[in-house]
């Protein structure tokens, strides 16, 4: 690896749910622009680690730093706005249109309607979605289309880091393959750092620049 800057560090983190220790004294450095895949058995703490990285969980011991700044309960919401979040099947809001889902993070940042429109116009060709779908609702889309919307929602606000929690696990092999290619090309075209939780080692090998087996 080149002398890349570290964007996210996990320092000696210990986390437990009630009495069950999930992570113990865990450390990890993630470089800017890398694609880190977290793999391992279910229950090994990979999803917990992801949720620690955007402050949805706060470690009992140790700390998480983003761009050198420690993640705390107080600054978690702020930090999350520079982090993208892509979940299984997209986890789209069923009561919002496709377009409203896509610009969700932009509205949180109070971006103007024109700027939102412009950004979505930019992104649509990237994920191969047609304009016609924008006014539809998530339940009118296929699983693959939903996840493409989820990807746009996760990256529209130019996040420095994108966290993905098993984003392709519920898709059929063909769709999964094309979406993997899509994410890979997005990663290559931008300088965004990706951290993905997956239970598939082949997926990790295909996409990851680094694989952390937990």
């Amino acid at each position, binding site marked *: 690896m080149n002398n890349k800057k570290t964007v996210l560090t996990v320092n000696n983190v210990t986390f437990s749910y009630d009495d069950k220790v999930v992570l113990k004294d865990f450390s990890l450095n993630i470089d800017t622009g890398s694609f880190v895949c977290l793999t391992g058995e279910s229950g090994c703490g990979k999803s917990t680690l992801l*949720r620690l990285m*955007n402050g*949805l969980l706060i470690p009992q011991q140790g700390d998480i730093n983003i761009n050198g700044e420690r993640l705390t309960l107080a600054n978690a*919401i*702020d930090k*999350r*706005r520079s*982090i*993208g*979040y892509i*979940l*299984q099947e997209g*986890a789209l*809001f*069923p*009561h*919002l*249109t496709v377009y*409203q889902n896509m610009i*969700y*993070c932009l509205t*949180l940042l109070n971006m103007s309607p024109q700027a939102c429109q412009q950004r979505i116009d930019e992104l649509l060709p990237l994920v191969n979605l047609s304009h016609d779908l924008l*006014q539809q609702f998530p339940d009118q889309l296929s699983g693959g289309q939903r996840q493409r919307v989820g990807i746009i*929602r*996760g990256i529209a606000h130019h996040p420095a880091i994108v*966290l993905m929690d098993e984003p392709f696990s519920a898709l059929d092999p063909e769709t999964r393959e094309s979406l993997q290619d899509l994410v890979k090309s997005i990663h290559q075209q931008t300088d965004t750092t990706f951290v993905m939780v997956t239970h598939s080692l082949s997926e990790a090998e295909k996409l990851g620049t680094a694989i952390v087996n937990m």
Partner: protein
Amino acid sequence: MNFIDRISYFLTLFSEHLLISFLAMLIVTVFGVAIGIWVFYKPKARRIIMPTVNFLYTIPSIAMFGLLIPLVGIGLQNALIVLVLYGLLPIVHNTYSGMKEVPYHLVDAAKGLGSTPQQLFRHVYFPLALPSILSGLRITTVMVIALTGLAALIGAGGLGQAIFRGLNTMNTPLIVTGSLGISLFAILGDKFVGTLEKNNNLQRIINRNAQPSQKHFIYLNLGILAALVLMSLVYINPFSKIKDRVITVASKPMSEQYILGEIMSQLIENQTDINVIRQFGIGGGTTNIHPALLSGDLDMYVEYTGTAWMNVLNQQSQLNFEQLQQQYQDNYQLQWLGLLGMNNTYAIAIPQSIATQKQIKTYSDLVRHSVAFDFGAEFEFFERADAYPSLIKVYPFNFAKLHEMDISLRYKAIEEGKVNAIDAFTTDAQIEALDLQVLVDDKHFFPDYEAGIVIREAVLQQYPELKTVLMQLEGKISTESMRKMNYQLEVLKETPKEIAQAFLATLGHKDE
């Protein structure tokens, strides 16, 4: 009642019903949703609030109206409180469970994307809980509209008034029309909330992703509701009631009380410039009217001396009328304005034909012929120590047979010849209808229930002219003429208004 009168009577009741339920729904929706949201975020509050809301729901609504009378009196305020407390349950529960059941992965997504707690509520929790809230609202709407029917019992008005008036004066068309009106109203209310629920119409409008047709449909429905509310407001104009010169006349829920209330009201309207508010058919009678007089919610009504001694002053024996006046004045600052002349007490009645044939006029006459009579009365009459058991000590009746029956069946029984003597109230319309003879209580066994006008002293001070006006009725309504007027109401189906007009005409007070 002529057609125009009838239409305007029901329009008034409908307007009142609409306004009461609309106001109650507005309050209950705001409070219910707010409480539901509050308990979702505060588990500690939830442990107290949810059982409380459940408990409120289990109190029978009639009891709740009554329980509130000492606190807030009768009328609109009381009705609104009961409707709101009662309607809370479905909304609070559905708001809470709607929020609780928002899928976790969506909350996780919204949080993970950087929503603040307020944004999370606004963008995710509330819109996704909305269908559940609306289905709670639907239940509450139907419940509140139906329950508003009972508000008439405490003088708040509404379509229930027609039902109770019908029940109290044996007027079936009134009962049917009132009931159908409430049912129709409840169905429309349910449909209205249903339009908000259908196709997620309201959810879409809130999230700004509704089709134009959805928007137009909802705005049209809201517009119709707003127009109806506005029209009702204009029609009954509740603000006009807050006049300087106004008096509230009350009546108990029985035929003759509607008539007497109407006679007093028309007399005041005809001869003074005081405006009359009619609060007729107050449920519970004296139990609820007397406290309302003390609190100033009501100003006057017709009471009976026996009831006043026994139920108001709690005295078993009756003293004379002057002492009754004195005690009312000293204890309650209420005045008895003379007695009307009628005495509505227990009596024994037999068919007129037998009475003439056997020359029976008094109870003592009946004792001599009692072996030839089958006597019918309600269970209570035979049971109460101060009724039949004491009666036969004073008048040693030796009836051929005693028939215990439900109170409503006595007249039927004597009509069909199953009995030929019954207990009755002296002013009952059926005495007239069935041509019965009320016998004279020659040893004065039954206490007197003489009717007289009870009025607040403060009102008499404010409107001194009232005394002279109302005193014109003193001694002018005999038991027989009251019975005739009850007959006109219950059997001939004339309205209290018409009967009162005719009566006042004979007194020489025609409408101006």
